[in-house]
């Protein structure tokens, strides 16, 4: 009898122990599957959040855009105030560089020409470039043309400035004008124009030398982005200079880039100008020479 009771107790204890074990196992932690699923969900959520915040039209970009718009509007207001002050009192000094239309009876002219638009600003406009000091405001952060007669203050984005001293006679549909003489440095090449690898040119380290820009024949080239060939039925390209050695003088290519390196394929419009030979080719990567 006693033995039976002891055995029963042992069975009960064992059951209890097993039950405890099972309970402990259940309580120890989450399952691996649940953990993996949780991590995946967290990663997805993180990705969505980062994308919302950092993408092109994300929160940060929108905030930057809004800040920029605010700054432009503030500066425009300052310029319009300058215009009003002048209109009330003509003795107030005008700011900016006076522009004037190019015409046959005007030997000395300067215009602002918008790129990719057949629009220009000349007579009655002043060019206020970035960094112009305005009393009570500071220096301008953007480029403008302003009109003291009609009160316009127009922010300039994609434009070129052309003057009579640069040898340009035809300005209509001019999209690019590189005139080393009127350039302060290579940062003033204009929007969409880059002088690549120019920093290491020439033994003197200078590649902008007053009247010309020096191409070293090693890795320098000009890159012109955003040129629309079919805008008005075609293009005209002019280039003039002096040769530096007896190798090829220059070439104009339409070149594909991959990660900012020249791609070894797909070039199309090419021209090649040498000592006594000029070649111009439209091809699919094969060259005449």
């Amino acid at each position: 009898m006693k033995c039976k009771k002891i055995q029963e107790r042992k069975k009960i204890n064992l059951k209890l122990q097993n039950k405890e074990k099972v309970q402990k196992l259940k309580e120890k932690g989450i399952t691996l599957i649940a953990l993996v699923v949780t991590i995946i969900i967290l990663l997805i959520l993180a990705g969505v959040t980062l994308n919302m915040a950092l993408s092109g039209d994300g929160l940060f970009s929108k905030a930057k855009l809004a800040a920029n718009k605010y700054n432009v509007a503030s500066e425009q207001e300052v310029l319009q105030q300058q215009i009003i002050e002048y209109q009330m009192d003509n003795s107030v000094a005008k700011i900016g560089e006076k522009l004037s239309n190019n015409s046959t009876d005007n030997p000395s002219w300067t215009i602002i020409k918008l790129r990719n638009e057949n629009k220009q600003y000349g007579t009655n406009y002043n060019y206020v470039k970035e960094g112009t000091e305005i009393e009570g405001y500071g220096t301008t952060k953007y480029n403008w043309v302003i009109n003291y007669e009609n009160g316009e203050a127009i922010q300039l984005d994609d434009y070129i400035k052309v003057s009579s001293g640069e040898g340009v006679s035809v300005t209509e549909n001019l999209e690019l004008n590189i005139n080393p003489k009127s350039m302060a440095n290579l940062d003033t090449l204009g929007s969409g124009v880059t002088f690549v690898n120019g920093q290491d040119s020439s033994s003197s380290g200078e590649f902008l030398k007053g009247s010309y820009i020096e191409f070293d024949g090693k890795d320098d080239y000009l890159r012109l982005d955003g040129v629309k060939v079919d805008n008005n039925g075609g293009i005209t390209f002019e280039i003039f200079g002096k040769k530096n050695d007896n190798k090829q003088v220059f070439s104009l290519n339409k070149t594909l880039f991959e990660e900012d390196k020249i791609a070894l394929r797909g070039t199309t419009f090419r021209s090649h100008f040498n000592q006594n030979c000029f070649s111009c080719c439209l091809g699919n990567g094969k060259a005449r020479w």
Partner: protein
Amino acid sequence: MEKLGGEFQSKSSNSEHWMDFDGENLINSEDGSFYLTMTLNLEDNAVSLYSLGSCIGKNICNENYLDSTLICDSSIPFTVGVLVSGSTMNIQYSNFLLYGCRLYDRVLSATEIKQNYDASKNLLDS
């Protein structure tokens, strides 16, 4: 069409179009200067070359050819001073002094090209 002496050749086929001008006067022998203008006319598929303000050659391309190339793709940049050529895609860089460079998004007439040359030629004297 005026030629500045020398032989002009051109070829146009389904796969390539080229022009060669071999001769004098492309580069000034005294000071090594040159003045070159090229026009690409999509209306008659013509590529024209001018030296010193005068036309030295013109080639009419296959009418469907310009549509099949990437010439009108504005996302592909033009480059000046680098040439990718040959079946091995050899890259060559130019060694020269740039006195001026202009691009118009239309085809200038021969008169306008001469006007620009007359207005600019003195810039090469400095």
